[in-house]
């Protein structure tokens, strides 16, 4: 018994550590990437390549005073940043990094990640509403409508894959694609000819669900100051930031497991945790690249894209795959 408790505690500590480390250094990677794309240096003063910048940022954020604006709903204002970070850490528990590196392999792993991801929308909502700021409220309305719209095509795509594999366990989903890259779900097969399209839909939806540009309508600086976290300073803002990057890591992990063969090597050699990390960091680099390359869309364009294009295509793909699975 004590061993299981110890295991659980160690798993949670590793999950928190991994999330925090990634959050800190992905901010650095994002700023450096932004600098490179915009032909400026980015943070390069503190330490070699500016690698100590996240530590300096962390110290600064933690030593600042937490200001709660007058008239704000204190309880909701304080809860919102925690709610941004906690579900992300919970989701790390069920993500398998390799055949053996997983905190808790659950039969409903996919569902669990989406269940906790749905709490992220609530955190934005509470942040915007609790701070009693009209820009905040407008940002939360946008973010919530965005979260609702993009969860639908994302879940339909996941259902297609779950149907093909016959399991909701993330470990089984990855094992089903072991072997070379021609076994991966992203490669079209006889029973699922539209898989590359599904991959694209899922990728777009994860960009939207993690509130990344070009879909970052919730924090559109040019219109809404800073959106839902306008009133947040110090570590409250820091937690939102860390939550965003933790969610990006989870999104990249999900794409890797669902479409890119999890921890499998593209050529069927030495499947291990390194391949998994390599794939998720390539995906994250793509996220950063997209953010600094494309301008922000409008809210109508965003909602139209989901309801008029992504949902019909993903529904068609679901029906097609169901039919072809029955035939072959």
């Amino acid at each position, binding site marked *: 018994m004590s061993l299981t*408790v110890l295991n659980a505690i160690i798993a949670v500590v590793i999950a928190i550590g991994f999330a925090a480390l990634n959050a800190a250094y992905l901010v650095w990677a994002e700023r450096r990437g932004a600098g490179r794309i915009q032909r400026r240096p980015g943070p390069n003063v503190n330490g070699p390549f500016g690698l100590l910048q996240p530590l300096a940022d962390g110290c600064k954020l933690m030593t600042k005073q937490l200001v709660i604006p007058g008239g704000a709903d204190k*309880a909701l204002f304080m809860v919102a940043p925690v709610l941004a970070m906690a579900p992300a850490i919970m989701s790390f528990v069920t993500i398998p990094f390799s055949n053996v590196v997983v905190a808790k392999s659950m*039969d409903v792993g996919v569902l*669990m990640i989406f269940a906790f991801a*749905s709490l992220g929308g*609530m955190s934005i*909502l509470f942040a915007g509403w609790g701070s009693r700021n009209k820009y905040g409220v407008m940002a939360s309305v946008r973010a*919530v409508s965005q979260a609702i719209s993009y*969860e639908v095509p994302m879940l339909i795509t996941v259902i297609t894959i779950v149907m093909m594999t016959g399991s*909701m366990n993330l470990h089984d989903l990855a094992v089903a694609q072991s072997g070379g890259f021609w076994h991966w779900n992203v490669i079209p097969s006889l029973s699922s000819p539209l898989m590359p399209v599904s991959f694209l839909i899922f990728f777009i939806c994860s960009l939207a669900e993690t509130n990344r540009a070009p879909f970052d309508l919730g924090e559109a600086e040019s219109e809404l100051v800073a959106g839902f976290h306008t009133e947040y300073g110090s570590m409250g803002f820091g937690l939102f930031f860390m939550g965003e990057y933790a969610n990006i890591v989870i999104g990249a992990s999900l794409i890797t497991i669902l479409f890119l063969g999890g921890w499998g090597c593209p050529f069927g050699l030495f499947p291990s945790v390194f391949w998994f990390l390599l794939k998720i960091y390539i995906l994250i680099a793509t996220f950063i690249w997209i953010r600094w390359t494309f301008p922000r869309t409008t809210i109508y364009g965003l909602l139209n894209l989901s309801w008029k294009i992504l949902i019909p295509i993903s529904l068609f793909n679901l029906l097609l795959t169901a039919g072809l699975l029955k035939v072959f």
Partner: protein
Amino acid sequence: MNPTVALSEAPGLFTADGLVGLIFLIMLATTVIGGIIACNAERLVRAVAGLIVCFIGVAALYYYLNSPFVAMMQMLIYVGAVCITIAFAIMLAAPEDKKKSGPAGPLTGPLGLITAGLVTFGMAAMALKTDFIPMPKINMGTVENIGVELLTTYSMVFELVSIVLLIAIIGALVIARQGRSK
């Protein structure tokens, strides 16, 4: 576990059973506190927050009862969809600072207390008098088990639920239609 264990034989706090009991109590407290917040909150958004806490407590109870699938669905549907929809409705409605209290109904005051007391007494009596039988674990509560059960043993219930949903959709359409013709 047999509910009529004497206090001297009850498991210690730091044994497996004791910890499980403690976690169960935490889940119960979460559910009840969430419900109380949802009913008594001054602002509607806080009521939604209480509702979320309550739903998470209920989801935890489902997980405790060995049905992770139902627990995750509870989170996904009630927290992720229902609460978000309620919150959306609140945000699109006019802001309301003070809680409006309507005229007091006949069930407030002493009569309400008596009713609550009777219900509590009845439930407590029922819980104490019932002879609890430890049931064997039926299955693992996986997606496959639930799917098979829904389409064989409980197919009637499954169909009835779909009819209820259909009626709800038609009702919503009728209500929305009336608003539009004005």
